[in-house]
């Protein structure tokens, strides 16, 4: 190991033939925290939710682009308190930054970070002086990213880049920045950071969706930051009892990721309330028609838990928090059957790593209707 690297945690790697309850993590990174920058950022415990009934037409699945632009402007200004949209964005990003827009395409093309939202963010970045060539829309898997067709929506010159041009290629990952752990005795014990993040980007705008996740309970800000920026993460959910509880927060809190994610814009125009993160069954899609804004991913994901839980309740499906073995099975076309024991507690776990505020009583939600 390079001695220049900052070894954040040193611990032996456990090796067992069965999944471990409390994995031991070893973070290897040369990056130090950057002051107060990054999660939970300047607005801990604060979430702005902007809802617009006209933002998307549920019948045609068509997004109203102008309304989305208004939602973006309203939300960012409500978060910072600025009167001008440009001033609000300029609190997070400067023209010299190289900005990554971390999209989520795991359910693409049916559900993903909407091109209209992503393009709206990129346009705001260009408007405050960030050259288009310094903006990267990125994701881990090229086939998923390409299926969306972001290029048709984005300002000319914005880069679209995947970490894995061919599936499971390691070349898009930084060999010197990784989290090492053994969940069940797997031989490849490293999860490496996307190389674009460590070598090119200076700031990241995180754009997750509003989705249930079969293993993690929900997939919102934290999971998009964590599993969307590191390799070899699906090993955390090989068995019914997964290790998503602690792995998600651990990855998200690893430098330079923690410092570089400066803003979260959660795209809740569409949602998935069961069998996520994919969207193979139309009956599990729904339309929250909202965007959420914040620098605190924990507080935002806390809202997402409530959103998905309420939808599941309305559909008479078991709670995200249910851990009963009788609800574990292969046929998850039944909304009361899931492949894994869900771990929505990963959000609270992340709060204990200093990533944000979980206590609902301490979260300040600003709800805006357009």
């Amino acid at each position: 190991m390079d001695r220049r690297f900052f070894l954040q945690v040193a611990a032996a790697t456990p090796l067992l033939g069965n999944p471990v309850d409390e994995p031991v993590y070893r973070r290897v990174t040369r990056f130090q925290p950057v002051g107060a920058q990054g999660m939970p950022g300047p607005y801990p415990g604060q979430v702005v939710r902007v809802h617009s009934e006209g933002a998307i037409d549920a019948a045609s699945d068509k997004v109203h682009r102008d309304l989305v632009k208004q939602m973006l402007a309203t939300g960012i200004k409500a978060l910072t308190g600025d009167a001008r949209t440009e001033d609000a964005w300029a609190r997070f990003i400067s023209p010299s930054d190289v900005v990554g827009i971390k999209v989520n395409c795991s359910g693409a093309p049916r559900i993903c970070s909407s091109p209209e939202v992503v393009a709206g963010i990129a346009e705001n970045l260009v408007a405050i002086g960030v050259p288009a060539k310094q903006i990267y829309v990125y994701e881990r898997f090229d086939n998923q990213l390409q299926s969306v067709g972001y290029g048709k929506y984005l300002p000319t010159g914005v880069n679209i880049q995947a970490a894995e041009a061919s599936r499971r290629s390691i070349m898009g990952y930084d060999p010197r920045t990784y989290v090492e752990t053994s969940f069940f005795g797997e031989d490849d014990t490293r999860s490496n950071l996307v190389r674009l993040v460590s070598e090119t980007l200076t700031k990241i705008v995180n754009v997750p969706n509003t989705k249930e996740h079969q293993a993690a309970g929900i997939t919102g800000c934290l999971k998009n930051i964590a599993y969307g920026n590191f390799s070899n993460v699906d090993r955390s959910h090989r068995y019914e009892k997964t290790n998503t509880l602690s792995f998600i927060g651990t990855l998200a809190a690893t430098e330079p990721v923690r410092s570089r994610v400066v803003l979260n814009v959660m795209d809740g125009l569409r949602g998935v309330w069961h069998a996520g993160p994919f969207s193979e069954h139309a009956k599990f899609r729904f339309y929250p028609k909202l965007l959420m804004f914040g620098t605190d991913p924990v507080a935002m994901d806390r809202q997402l838990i409530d959103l998905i839980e309420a939808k599941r309740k309305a559909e008479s499906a078991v709670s995200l928090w249910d851990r009963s073995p009788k609800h574990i099975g292969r046929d998850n076309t039944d909304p009361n059957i899931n492949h894994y024991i869900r771990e929505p507690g990963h959000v609270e776990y992340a709060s204990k790593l200093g990533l944000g505020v979980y206590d609902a009583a301490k979260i300040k939600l600003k709800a805006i209707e357009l």
Partner: protein
Amino acid sequence: MLLLLAALPTLFWDGAADTAPALREAGIRQIQVPAARLAEWKNVPDISAEAADLQRAVKLLAPTVNYRMDQASASRAPWLISNGWKFLRQPKGRWYYDVPGRQSAIAAAEAFSFGANAMVRTDAAGLKPLAEMLEFLGSVNTDPLPPIADIGFIDDGSSAAGEVMNMMVRDNLLFEIVAKPDPRFKLTARLGAKEYPLADAKNPGVVAHAIRGNLTDEKRSVRIYGSPVVVVRLTGSGGKVRLQLLNYTGATRNVDGIRVRVLGQYPQHQLAAADSPGLELVDYSAEPDATEFTLTQLKTYAVIDLSR
């Protein structure tokens, strides 16, 4: 201590001498033939023939990977079919493969990397890949170097012990067969010992996991990250080590990058990779405890010499 002698495998060909043009065109220059065909092949120009008897050799499995597509988990480990443990158990054995097409190249590289005395029987489609691999293997530095092993394994000759050795080869747990505990190794393992009860051998993977756990990953002389289908052989002495890397899916697909960690500080390196001229190691790091690098692509087989 056994030195790893890198004998070149040979094509076993039972076709008549009138098939010589196809062999020549593929680049085959040396063959072994059934005794009954030796006379006709002796008069064929540019191809040297010797008699061989497959009945006196042990047939090997085709080296490959079974992805077990019936098991729908992306993280499920693929099943490598490797003959490495057989070579280690019987280093003086006489072997042959019967493999079609591009598997002939993988077979030749597997036998070569384990220093096995093997013939490769193949079909017309396998001639050119085999010839190209043999040409590459012939160009590889064959200075004999002793194997490097972390584990001394007491082999009782049972099929259960064989399966444990098979798992260790596939998992890149470097071992040498020993008759009794030997302080040269970081760990000695024997099936039936308290730490490795015979009952566990019903699932040899459990025993291999236990051996790995007792050894610990930190003490493993070599680690491979990024692919579960690459098997490594490590030899060396006197400040020099040689890694031989074999992609068991090489007949059908490349491995797009692997990260390699070798214990010890080796600032110098030399790479030779089959069918990959100009390939280089990247993100190279030689620290006092370990050397790490990335091989950007592994088509079938590569040899990397590291030195101080």
